[in-house]
């Protein structure tokens, strides 16, 4: 048993068994993170390159820490100061990194499909840390890990994802992952941000948040980019919060035992009220901790896939 591909490009390419294996392995790594010495020599001698074309503190540091805790050497390729600004093409940048002997390339880019491109053109294992509006697989995996940890199962749960689904790679990866693992998925948000065609993926679509959250087990809030208000997706953030913001009243529509999740960073008062974000049912901080274990598991399992 093992992952079938040398890369983790997206959830679309994984099956339920792959996802189970990653979650099980992550559980083992979470134990490691509970010790005093949080480092293991498993991937000693390997080199990890962080290739982040989009600025990101939390995801990059999470991957960096995961790679270091597995004893790999980590190089951060900071795009704003590098040859890319001088007009170097994506392909040339990638080949240069490969020539440096990278075993893992963690890539985040504003264009969908970049992770695919790199995976097809490089021998190294490529991990997609977010490409355009396509996928962010490790986020979905850590979200599922958190759900499984808290609820014991994923199959049969009803999960509501609320917000800008159209532009959210986190939402898409979660939709694919939750469906593969047997959860029910509801998408909630304004019609401009929740494409109707997604019904074909066997999800329910709601623009009425009260109905959308009724009796769900998990409420997954997405970050609203404030810039979208100028472009006709919704008039103002005030109106957005009124219709689709998560307040304690709205949350009470869900099951009493429902959990509140958010990939971060949060826009308090735009998509989520502070009461809820800091409340008892929020597992937002657990998501961050679990992110580290999940990313270690991904790197460890990918290292075992031979060319």
């Amino acid at each position, binding site marked *: 048993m093992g992952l079938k591909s040398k890369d983790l490009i997206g959830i*679309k390419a994984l099956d339920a068994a792959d996802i189970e294996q990653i979650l099980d392995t992550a559980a083992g790594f979470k134990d490691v993170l509970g010790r005093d010495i949080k480092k293991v020599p498993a991937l000693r001698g390997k080199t990890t390159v962080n290739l982040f074309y989009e600025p990101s503190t939390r995801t990059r540091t999470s991957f960096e820490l995961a790679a270091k805790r597995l004893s790999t050497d980590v190089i951060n390729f900071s795009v704003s100061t590098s040859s890319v600004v001088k007009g170097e*093409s*994506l*392909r040339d940048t990638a080949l240069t990194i490969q020539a440096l002997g990278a075993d893992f390339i963690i890539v985040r*880019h504003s*264009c*969908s*499909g*970049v992770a*695919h*491109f790199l995976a*097809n053109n490089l021998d190294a294992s490529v991990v997609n840390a977010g*490409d*355009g*509006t*396509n*996928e962010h697989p490790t986020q979905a995996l850590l979200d599922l890990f958190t759900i499984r940890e808290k609820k014991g199962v994923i199959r049969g749960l009803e999960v509501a994802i609320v917000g800008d689904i*159209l532009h959210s*790679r986190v939402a*898409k990866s979660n939709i694919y992952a939750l469906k593969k693992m047997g959860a029910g998925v509801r998408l909630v948000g304004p019609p401009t941000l929740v*494409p109707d*065609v*997604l019904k*074909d*993926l066997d999800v329910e679509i709601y623009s009425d948040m009260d109905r959308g959250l009724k009796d769900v087990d998990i409420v997954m809030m997405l970050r609203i980019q404030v810039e979208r208000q100028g472009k006709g997706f919704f008039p103002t953030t005030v109106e957005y919060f009124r219709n689709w913001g998560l307040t304690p009243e709205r949350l009470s529509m869900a099951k009493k035992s429902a959990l509140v999740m958010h990939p971060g960073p949060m826009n308090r008062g735009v998509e989520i009220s502070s009461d809820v974000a800091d409340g008892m049912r929020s597992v937002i901080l657990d998501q961050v901790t679990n992110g580290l274990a999940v990313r270690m598991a991904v790197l460890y399992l990918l290292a075992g896939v031979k060319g």
Partner: protein
Amino acid sequence: MRVVIKNGHVIDPSQGIDGVCDLVLEDGKIKEVKSEKSKGKGQRHEDNRGTKEIDASGKLILPGLVDLHVHLREPGYEYKETIRTGTTAAIRGGITSVCCMPNTNPVNDNSSVTEFILKKAASEGACRVLPIGAITKGQKGEELAEMSIMREAGCVAFSDDGRPVTDSLMMRRAMEYSRILKVPLISHCEDLALSAGGVMHEGLLSVTLGLKGIPSQAEEVIVARDIALAELTGGRLHIAHVSTEGSVALIRSAKKRGIADVTAETCPHYFSITEEAVGNYDANAKVNPPLRSRKDVEAIKQGLHDGTIDVIATDHAPHHRDEKLGEFDFAPSGISGLETSLGLSMRLVDEGVLTYSGLVEKMALKPSGIIGIDRGTLRPGAEADVVVVDCSREYRVDAREFLSKGKNTPFGGWTLSAKPVLTISLGRIHEWE
């Protein structure tokens, strides 16, 4: 020089010919088409002085194809293609007349550029080049270009292709004015606001790939607008690269009601592949208008079958190999189509969508009529533009073998079965295996 092409299956809808004939060419013109019945009658030529005989048994003989929509890229983008390489690719594909779009650098919006193109074509072109001039200066959509002067210089039609004429009033004026020219305005129908930032067809696939979509309606609203303006102005409208079911329906209705002088073209990719060709972000499948859904492909075929769509053109859009690598979003749109057009279009005959005659109409006769040139025919006295096609053996499309500089095709690896083996153009005979 006298050339006799013997025993080929001649398809010439302009004369109602569809059968085995000998084709006799003399001094660069068609002399006669001798059917089985008429052979043996009439004078025998005793002297074989300078007669070249070509045996075309088992092959098709067509009038040289006329492509209304080609980007030759010269002047300005010679790294993608030149008039020499583009016309060489054309004759390889059986195309002997090529209409080149004005989105060069500088734009062909004045007679100097038109003359440059014609001069280059005269010295380096492998086939006839007919320039299409811009409708507006710089294709900016703000001021009319000197269409009359360009017409005199040699332009056969006008278009801002690459872009639409966004301002409806501007398009109205252009159509009204163009009535003095008696040539069509070729419209690239796209509502730029609706399509903004889009890189593929809008649908479930674009959402799950995370690529911004271009809805069918971005094309259809401008098709409807331009038909309405043609009705208002009495101008001649030719709709470029039709790609959607809705567009076909609008054109069909307009023709039925007889409200406007409208013709329409489509391209082989719109009846051969769907949005699924994008696959895992293959930029070779990135084209504008984008590849659409299965439904749209069927509607395009129906439109060709019932005459709603008059012409098959390639919209040949060569790009440099490096430009199609990397980020899908940044890749330029376009398919290098001259060398696959006939093979893909012949599949329509195999599928019963068109007959051989119907195919030649769409690819040679009708286009000639639209721009008013005497081509697409094997009538005695016509120019000797001829292509001999071998349909008996299959071949695999390999972009590395393209004579065009543009290797950007989503059809790599496809098995096709109509291969030009001989093209006669500009008085020269070109033969290939």
